[in-house]
């Protein structure tokens, strides 16, 4: 073996193997890391803190609480509101995903009439503004149902969840259709030649491959719906934004408190959504490598 390399440059040690002779090994995918704090983020965080705390120095009156103290005082309340936002987003996402997968399956189904219908529903709910759909759900769904003598109450927040799940459903349906369409048609043909039925092909071959493609846009959608849940405050659900304005009123309606309070709400959502965005990017990059 070593005679082969006698002609190699003098710097080469004995026993070294030429790089081209090494077996090919794919580089390991980069492990997911928490986003590194760069200059940008530091500037942003310091800016946000200054903005929040800025009110403190603008008004030096003794009996007044500074903006930071106000936020600290009402922190548990604001956080419970934020938790409610998260809860609404999770429930709306769950409901919308299930409905959307159903609608998406209809969209790629064989029945021509159902396919057109599902397509029309998807386009309609995708193109309607979320706030209008929310109003739609709020005003069109009765506040209670009577089933077999039982009265099932439908509080505002449940209706809001339904309102949010409508656009999620439509987008999910489109994501599913896109993922199925993006698979090479050879997969269908190969399955057919192996005598899989259409249903078997779909559930055993196509959809499992689609999960990977659907995950990044699905997470994107989740982040969008989380940010949309604050819209529920417009229709009177008491979530974080409603509580924020109530806190503002409780502190005497000082105008200098508004920027810090809304800034704090922005910060909460940023802290929640930014990691999701990073993770989505990571998944996208990782899945592209393996395809």
């Amino acid at each position, binding site marked *: 073996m070593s005679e082969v390399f006698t002609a190699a440059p003098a710097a080469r040690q004995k026993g070294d193997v030429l790089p081209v002779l090494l077996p090919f090994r794919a580089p390991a995918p980069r492990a997911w890391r928490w986003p590194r704090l760069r200059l*940008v983020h530091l500037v942003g965080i310091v800016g946000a803190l200054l903005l929040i705390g800025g009110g403190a120095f603008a008004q030096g009156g003794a009996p007044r609480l500074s903006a930071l103290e106000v936020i600290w005082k009402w922190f548990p309340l604001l956080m419970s509101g934020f938790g409610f936002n998260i809860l609404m987003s999770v429930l709306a996402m769950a409901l919308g995903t299930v409905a959307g997968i159903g609608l998406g399956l209809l969209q790629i189904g064989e029945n021509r009439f159902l396919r057109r219908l599902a397509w029309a529903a998807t386009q309609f709910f995708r193109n*309607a503004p979320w706030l209008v759909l929310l109003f739609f759900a709020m005003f069109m769904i009765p506040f209670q149902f009577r089933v077999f003598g039982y009265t099932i109450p439908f509080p505002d927040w449940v209706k809001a969840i339904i309102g949010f799940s409508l656009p999620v459903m439509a987008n999910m349906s489109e994501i599913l259709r896109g993922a199925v369409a993006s698979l090479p048609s050879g997969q269908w043909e190969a399955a057919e030649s192996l005598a899989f039925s259409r249903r078997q092909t779909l559930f055993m071959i196509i959809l499992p491959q689609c999960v990977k493609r659907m995950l990044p846009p699905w997470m994107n959608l989740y982040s969008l719906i989380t940010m949309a849940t604050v819209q529920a405050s417009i229709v009177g659900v008491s979530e974080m934004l409603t509580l924020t304005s109530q806190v503002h009123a409780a502190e005497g309606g000082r105008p200098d408190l508004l920027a810090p309070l809304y800034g704090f709400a922005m910060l909460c959502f940023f802290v929640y959504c930014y990691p999701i965005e990073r993770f989505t990017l990571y998944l996208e990059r990782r899945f592209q490598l393996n395809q």
Partner: protein
Amino acid sequence: MDMIAKWFLELYETTGINLTIVYDAYDRQRFLSGLGMTVYLSVVCILASIVIGAVGAWAQGSPLRVVRGLVNGFVVLFRNTPPLVQIFFFYFGLGQILPRIEDVDGMRVPILTNVQWAIVSLSLFAGAFNVEIFRSGIEAVPRTTTEAAEALGYTRFGVYRHVLLPLALRICLPSLNNNLVNLLKTTTLAYAIAVPETLYVSKQIWTDSQNVPVMMIVLLLVYTALVGILVFIMHRWEKALAIPGYGQGGAR
């Protein structure tokens, strides 16, 4: 006009479909002005956000780290916070802090009205997404194209304006299209700061006339139509811009 109004009045009396926006002159005027405000908001915000996106994407390629960092910070911040909270932050938060000016009547008024704040915050929100979209388009232009342009003596701005941006625009038009549709839908959020756009006037109308379901359906149809018009215009633009090999338009 009178005949149509009469017919719709009859429709209301026979079926209960109360379309006040057709037969009632006051409601019609209100609704049309709301529609006009939505179109105005959308057009201004679309143009402003495209400018923000193009400038931001250029600044992202800056050799200065601080500029790059600031643009990245702007994009990350605006992409990951709810647009409604942004609007509130700008209108209530910043609007209160900024000094007031005197108008023609000598009244002290805020520097920007609610419509202007809505335009500012919606443009910044959509602009942040556009920066990312343009950046992805620029990244898809082969590096050699830039190098060739540089070899021909273009400055950095010249390369961007004459070579990179026109090619990148064609590549990213589909996703730009998507984002602009999203922006059109987001203009409804201006409702929250009492900008009299379509949703706002519709709410006034259905409060006055008690015709919530009818107005709801009208509202959904109006927005679907508006989105349809925008998509149609964007497709025409895409076709007009198409050059072989770039974007979807060229492939056809």
